């Protein structure tokens, strides 16, 4: 974040918020794989408010509207917005002179990626301000104004870039579409933006932004990397695919620079170390936050700012990485070498392919992983693959199973084993049943459980057998007329019959439901009660 423009008087409050943010950051980053120094430029994305990353894109624009409405009250840049359009026209003018090329969607994508990041960055800043505002109310107006300026400047740059990017597509400016967005961006950064926000103090961030733009436009792949990195940060688990994503990249050999990290470097838990106390960090930003504790000189905006890339103006080769493991396809000496795109890819690849799987899933105790993120992904779904099709395929989501069944003839949902196995006694009646049995026993009137277990013969037989006892309750009456629902006429053999007939009824095809395992056989009350859940 470009906070370094913050004036000193408010540095303390900033510091506070930073320190709180720092803790948050630590929490967030503790699970992340450490980044190497070459990733440093991208670390600005790991802002304390990174958690909000995925929320919305719109708010900054809404903010922008509000700002522009209130802008007249700001003394510093009264007609910032107007200028933008002026410059836009001016820019178009310059661009028209440029040589005409074919419109490059790839470059466009890069631009959009960049814009996206920029917006998120701004969003984070606003989040931070919002958060701080709720913390400390008595803030000097000056600071507020400066924040506004900062945001305005950023927004201006975003809008200009957006317009220029869009301009490359408009039919009315067809001649323009020939120019590479790269060029436009470069101009944006170099020519126009500084002048637009020139008078006020927030020139620097815009300049940074601008220079970055030119960086990016010069080396598109960094933007891509940047995007990847960001993905990684916000949803680390999806980085799994990164490794394979570049399978079909087919960069001609020699068009990129190959870097190879050593094994120790890859496996090191920390990549950033405090020069004073030696504490290690996964991220440079964390280190910088940490450094503030070592003295006031580390609290200056310059010290806290993300180190800029050196030699930005020089064109750089695309970077690709090689796995240090000899014989690996990802090793640069391999005949069909396929390079890895980012440091993170290297790390994950190395751990997955060449290291022990030391993380075991605590739920199933079978699945093992070498990357902790993979374990977490698995744990999220472990045991949830309960949607089963008759063909044996399992699904973690019910709608996926139903989609599968709708698609294929003859496939049918398979009812989980536990359910068929259990007796049809509803669980909530189980307890009652137990209780009932005890009660029944105590008065020697053995009905057994009243559950439909198929043990009714036993039960009713008991009833009949013990009928003399209960007559005690109603002794004054004659019971000759009552035939007890004809229970005594109930034939016993059908049980054995149906049991045997059932066994042939169940073909192998439906063994997934295991109908035979239903509590069909006769059971004593005690037995069935022991089956009942609590």
């Amino acid at each position, binding site marked *: 974040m470009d906070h370094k423009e913050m004036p000193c008087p408010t540095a303390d409050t900033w510091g506070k918020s930073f320190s709180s943010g720092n803790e948050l950051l630590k929490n967030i980053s503790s699970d992340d794989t450490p980044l190497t120094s070459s990733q440093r430029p991208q670390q600005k994305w790991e802002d304390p408010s990174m958690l909000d990353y995925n929320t919305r894109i719109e708010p900054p624009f809404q903010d922008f509207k509000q700002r522009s409405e209130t802008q007249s009250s700001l003394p510093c840049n009264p007609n910032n917005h107007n200028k933008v359009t002026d410059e836009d026209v001016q820019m178009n003018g310059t661009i028209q002179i440029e040589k005409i090329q074919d419109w490059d969607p790839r470059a466009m994508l890069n631009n959009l990626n960049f814009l996206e990041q920029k917006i998120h960055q701004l969003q984070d800043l606003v989040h931070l301000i919002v958060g701080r505002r709720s913390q400390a109310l008595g803030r000097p107006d000056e600071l507020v104004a400066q924040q506004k300026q900062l945001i305005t400047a950023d927004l201006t740059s975003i809008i200009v870039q957006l317009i220029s990017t869009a301009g490359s597509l408009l039919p009315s400016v067809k001649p323009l579409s020939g120019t590479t967005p790269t060029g436009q961006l470069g101009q944006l950064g170099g020519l126009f933006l500084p002048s637009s926000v020139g008078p006020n103090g927030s020139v620097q961030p815009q300049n940074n932004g601008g220079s970055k733009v030119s960086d990016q436009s010069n080396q598109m792949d960094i933007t891509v990397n940047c995007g990847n990195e960001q993905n990684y940060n916000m949803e680390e688990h999806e980085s799994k695919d990164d490794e394979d994503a570049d399978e079909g990249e087919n960069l001609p050999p020699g068009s990129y620079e190959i870097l190879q990290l050593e094994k120790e470097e890859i496996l090191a838990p920390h990549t950033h170390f405090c020069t004073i106390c030696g504490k290690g960090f996964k991220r440079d930003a964390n280190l910088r936050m940490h450094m503030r504790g070592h003295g006031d000189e580390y609290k200056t905006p310059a010290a806290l700012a993300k180190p800029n890339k050196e030699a930005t103006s020089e064109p750089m080769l695309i970077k690709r990485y090689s796995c240090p493991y000899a014989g690996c396809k990802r090793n640069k000496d391999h005949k069909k070498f396929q390079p890895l795109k980012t440091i993170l890819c290297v790390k994950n690849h190395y751990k997955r392919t060449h290291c022990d799987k030391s993380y075991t899933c605590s739920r199933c105790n079978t699945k093992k992983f070498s990357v902790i993120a993979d374990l977490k992904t698995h744990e999220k779904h472990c045991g949830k693959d309960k949607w089963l099709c008759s063909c044996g395929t399992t699904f973690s989501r019910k709608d996926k199973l139903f989609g599968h069944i709708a698609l294929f003839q003859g496939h049918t949902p398979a*009812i989980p084993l536990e359910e*068929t196995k259990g007796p049809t006694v509803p669980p909530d009646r189980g307890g009652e049943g137990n209780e009932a049995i005890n009660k029944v026993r105590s008065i020697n009137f053995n009905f057994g459980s*009243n559950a439909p277990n198929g043990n009714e013969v036993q039960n009713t037989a008991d009833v009949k057998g013990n009928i003399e006892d209960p007559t005690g309750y*109603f002794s*004054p009456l004659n019971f000759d007329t009552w035939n007890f629902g004809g229970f005594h006429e109930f034939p016993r053999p059908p049980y054995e019959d149906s049991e045997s007939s059932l066994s042939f009824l169940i073909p192998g095809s439906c063994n997934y439901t295991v109908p035979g395992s239903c509590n069909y056989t006769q059971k004593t009350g005690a037995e069935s009660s022991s089956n009942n859940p609590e």
Partner: protein
Amino acid sequence: MKKAKQFQFQVQPLINNNNNNNNNNGLSFSYFDLLSEEIVFTILDLLAPNPLDKKSFSFVCKNFYFLESKHRRILKPLRSEYLPKVLTRYPHVTHMDLTLCPRVTDSTLTNIASACNSNLVSIDLSMSKFFTGVGLLSLAVKCENLVELDLTNATELKDSAAAMVAEARNLERLWMGRCKMVTDMGVGCIAVGCRKLKLLSLKWCVRVGDLGVGLIAVKCKDIRSLDLSYLPISDKCLPSILNLQYLEDLALVGCFGIDDNSLAVLKNGCKSLKKLDMSSCEKITHIGLSSIFSCTICLEQVTLANGFSVNLDLADTLNKLSKLQSIKLDGCPVTCAGLGAIGDWCVSLKELSLSKCSGVTDEGLTYLFTKQKDLRILDITCCRKITDVSISHITSSCTDLSSLKMESCTLVPREAFILIGQRCHSLEELDLTDNEIDDEGLKSISKCSKLSSLKLGLCLNITDEGLAHIGMSCLGLKELDLYRCTGITDSGILAIAGGCPGLEMINIAYCKEITDNSLLLFSKCAQLNTIECRGCPHITSLGLAAIAAGCKQLTKLDIKKCYKIDDAGMIPLAYFSQNLKQINLSYSSVTDVGLLSLASISCLHTLTILHLKGLTPSGLAASLLACGGLTKVKLHASFKSLLPQAIFEHLEARGCLFQWREKVFQAELDTKCWKLQLKDMMQ
């Protein structure tokens, strides 16, 4: 044609066979044996209305017994315990109705399956409990011709059981209402297994959602009738349901997951749909209705009860439905403009129900009925704002009205009822409960000679004189409700009982002047199956005995608060009324002996016994145990502690439900007081 030929062909050889056999036997010759099988079957067909006749017929001779066994297709056993024997006697049974057997276990079903095999076409388990998927599996596998299966109220049936049902590949009609444990998985199995399903009811299967219903729509393309009431379904499955090519009847009552937006996405028309019920769909407004009606233009019957506000917008949506014949708007707030628009758009309306609609006024109805001429069935129950103006318009435009229900239209003056009798001669069903009708009105209504059901409950202005007119003219009357008609005495009943021999249902509750004489008269109405004479203090056991002896069809009897009825009335009842299913004995003077004697009525399944002074706990226990077929018993809560828990558990295991009431003993109120009290409560 084909049958007739077969008949001719078979008669001759059969007679010959019989002759030969009997000649050989020599002595045991019976002329009944000369009758051919076909002739006996024809006779048995004609005996179908009364099961007892068939029973008597089968006892004539061995041949008849044998032929009756061979002829019977439908079996409705009282006890599942006797089924093995019964099934050997009736090997050709195709329809099995087990609604009277509360306890149907897996072994029962297995027995039925192995006895009926492929003969079995239909089985009704809607009132039964205690069976599981195992029994259903044996049915599904052995009875390959099973087409109809009713599993309503099988609340404990799980997905595994549904998977067993899915093995019945030829199933065409399946009711699963209130199978609350069944989820998408179970329904999914059925969708895949029973591809020939034409009717499926999933009402109250609250665990079935979009996925299960969606799969039904994908796999069972032959569905004609689908009941999805109270399911948590949303727009995800609606389009596929309405894509069903043959769907005619769709019920979406209380589907709260469906809103206007989910209906807006419907694109493809469902041309086949004729009947749609969207009652109580809270989230749907006229906008949603407009979208669904525009793709179901062939609708004939629409039910939009509870929740829709019937205004101009809603009525305009009906514009698209040119074939609409029936609209039910029960319980909806209605505006005049809405009613008027319905009158404009729906020109061929046959049935209209506005019961309990607030906002129904003379103005609205007047406008509606200037356009509607063909209406046959009209329900304006509790439209309390309408007066004789509406009645005048209704009767003058809809002279073909066959059913008119206008309970509690209290502002309609007595003169208006004369119009009904003068103009609507085709009335068959008339509900005038709680109205101002008087004897003049009844005299006029007696011109409706086709009248079969007349309800006059709480009509305090009518007397014996008016009733006499009804008794003289309405010979086909089957149902008469005189609940709390305090002006009625024995002489009124004399006219009714004499004039309406076909009477099936009579309610004389709280007609305090009624004595045993009326019951003696009613005992001549042999078709009588329901008698409610609650709160008639003059009725004694003597009258009840006469009823028991005369009305063999009696299935429902309410003698609550008939204080003079005692055990002497119960014993003849127990002896003669073998069809009795439901009895209310509360507040009567029946004791242990009377109650226990009822145990000999094998059909008895519902028993209400509150505040019986002479009933002891042991007597109650004995009676309950002795009545094998009980499914529902209403008891005072005090008995809960007086009897051992095990008895209740045993009875529950037999399939009996207990309802405990805490109500204290209540003295009886005068009807007018009672009515005033009711009004107070309503306000």
